[in-house]
């Protein structure tokens, strides 16, 4: 194995992995606060990508400028989904039901996207999409670097919101224990709704980078959601740092497997890593092992 391949895999792991980490953070945040597994996260990433695509094709708005529109738009989409469907789920089977409800939502969106945009693959365009620069023998695509910076900025903003604001404190309190949070006067329902919106809003940015680095259509969401779920379980469900680490690890391992054996095995490697890690740590890398888990 040569050093350049190793360095390239490490670079991809960090650059692309951070974008996956951003999308997965939304998912793990929603799970941690609400006990909701949002299967629709995959299709919402694609919806975010298509929003950027529509802005680009119809109004010639640059991808990064477009985020100023798509991020708030996806936030609203998240709030609407939470208000219409998720908030109605009650009872002990809530988490299991949430999988089915969000899957149904995802089918609705998939059908809608197929009708509006057809099933042909598209990719987002921009001068930075096709160009790259090199350090030594390792090539850096501008879009990947931009994606990394964007993910870093948004994760930083998310971190700031969670750890430095009063609202973030209520989110973390709800993460730790919903009942106690409600007892100290936190409006858990409102926190849940906003958290869901925030968790979905990040898909706009993730989707834009995904759409610029991959050709996609609505059915790309299956591949995405399986990766995102793998990342949050590997990191430990509900753990924000875990999602970050697992996102980078996944892409790194996938790339290494691609270099050493063959690219056809790289997507398989995510799932094998997941199964192996769970044999050793059933709660995931950074998950908390609590005494009673539903």
């Amino acid at each position, binding site marked *: 194995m040569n050093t350049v391949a190793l360095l390239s895999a490490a670079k991809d792991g960090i650059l692309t992995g951070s974008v996956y980490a951003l999308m997965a953070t939304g998912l793990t945040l929603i799970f941690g606060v609400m006990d909701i*597994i949002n299967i629709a996260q995959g299709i919402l990433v694609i919806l975010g990508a298509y929003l950027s695509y529509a802005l680009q094709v119809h109004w010639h708005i640059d991808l990064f400028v477009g985020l100023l529109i798509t991020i708030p738009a996806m936030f609203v989409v998240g709030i609407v989904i939470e208000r219409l*469907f998720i908030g109605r789920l009650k009872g002990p089977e809530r988490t299991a039901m949430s999988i*089915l*409800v969000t899957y149904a939502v995802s089918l609705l969106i998939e059908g809608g996207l197929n009708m509006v945009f057809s099933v042909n693959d598209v990719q987002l365009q921009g001068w930075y999409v096709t160009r790259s620069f090199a350090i030594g023998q390792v090539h850096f695509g501008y879009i990947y670097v931009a994606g990394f910076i964007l993910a870093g900025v948004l994760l930083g903003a998310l971190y700031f919101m969670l750890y430095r604001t009063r609202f973030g404190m209520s989110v973390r309190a709800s993460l730790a224990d919903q009942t106690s949070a409600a007892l100290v006067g936190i409006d858990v329902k409102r926190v849940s709704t906003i958290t869901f919106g925030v968790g979905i809003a990040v898909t706009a940015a993730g989707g834009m980078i995904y759409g610029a680095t991959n050709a996609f259509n609505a059915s790309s969401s299956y591949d995405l959601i*399986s990766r995102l779920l793998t990342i949050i379980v590997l990191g430990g469900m509900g753990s924000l740092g875990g999602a970050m680490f697992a996102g980078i690890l996944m892409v790194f391992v996938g790339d290494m497997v691609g270099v050493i054996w063959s690219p056809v095995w790289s997507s398989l490697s995510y*799932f094998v890593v*997941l199964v192996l890690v769970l044999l050793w740590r059933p709660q995931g890398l950074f998950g908390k092992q609590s005494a009673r888990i539903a």
Partner: protein
Amino acid sequence: MLQKKNLWWLVAFGALGLFPVLVTNPTYTTIGVFTIIFMACATSWNMFSGYSGYIALGSAVFYGSGAYTMALLSIHLHMAAGSELFALVPVGGLVAMVMAVPIGWIALRVRRHTFVVITIAVFFIFQLSAINFGFTGGTSGLNLPFITWGFQNYNTPFYYVGLGLTIFVTLVSALVRRSRFGLQLLAIRDDEDRAMGLGVKVTAVKITGFTMSAFTVGAAGALYAMFVGQIYPQFVFDPMFDVSIALMAFLGGLGTLSGPLLGALILEASQQYLTVTYSNGSLYLILFGALFLVVIIFMPQGIVTFIRDRVSRRAERERAAVAANDAPPSPTTPVEGVAVGGTH
């Protein structure tokens, strides 16, 4: 009471048995074969996931394993293309059970939420392996021996074998429900820690249930492979399959005996019908998703439980009404009480 209930079951299965006699149009009997296959799978899924509360979204692993067992054995053993192939249907089920033991051992080390995701991950391992390994034929799939019996009655034998599987799994499911083992599964669903505290060997019970439920799904996969004649990784390891059978069980009533059968009958038949009639995939996705949401929001307990609650509530009301009529009139009725109060 029990007699009357059993009679209903006989009538229902009798009607299913008469279907190919009454309906001869191959378009509809094909829909019938797919529907009966899904009825068997949904019931089998419910026997573990419905009773234990561990929602598995990777049953296509067993379906695909059964299908590939059928295809690979029939090809490599050079089997004659006739009803002998039906002998491989239970073999497909057994292979699926063998697969289920290590998968269950790994996936059931964690609790419910994570279990769901691991079953999805295992599913993708199988799908990607089927695409990438050589012996499965990759994305070009495998062709089974071409069945020789005539076109006109082609569907009928498949339908009855499928019906046999459905009856078999319904009986097993009913027996499990009444057994000590079934009660242990239900105890796990209600409170796993307490069940463990009361001496239920939870891990052994869960793995056993998981393995048992794999059999019929594998056998159904083998039957499917024989029925369609060629298999592709993306159709036998289909994520829609995983979610569809879960949805069928939820629609009918999770953990009930008749729920998954009813759910599969409604969903699969309507799906096949819509596909045949409209052949618009996107419209179908929207209709399916919308139906799904309506059911979960308005009947979260499923159709069977919903109707049962209504019936028992009405019976209760009638009983209350009868009791009220029989009872002697109370000395002071509320109306008089109000009137008295008004004179003050």
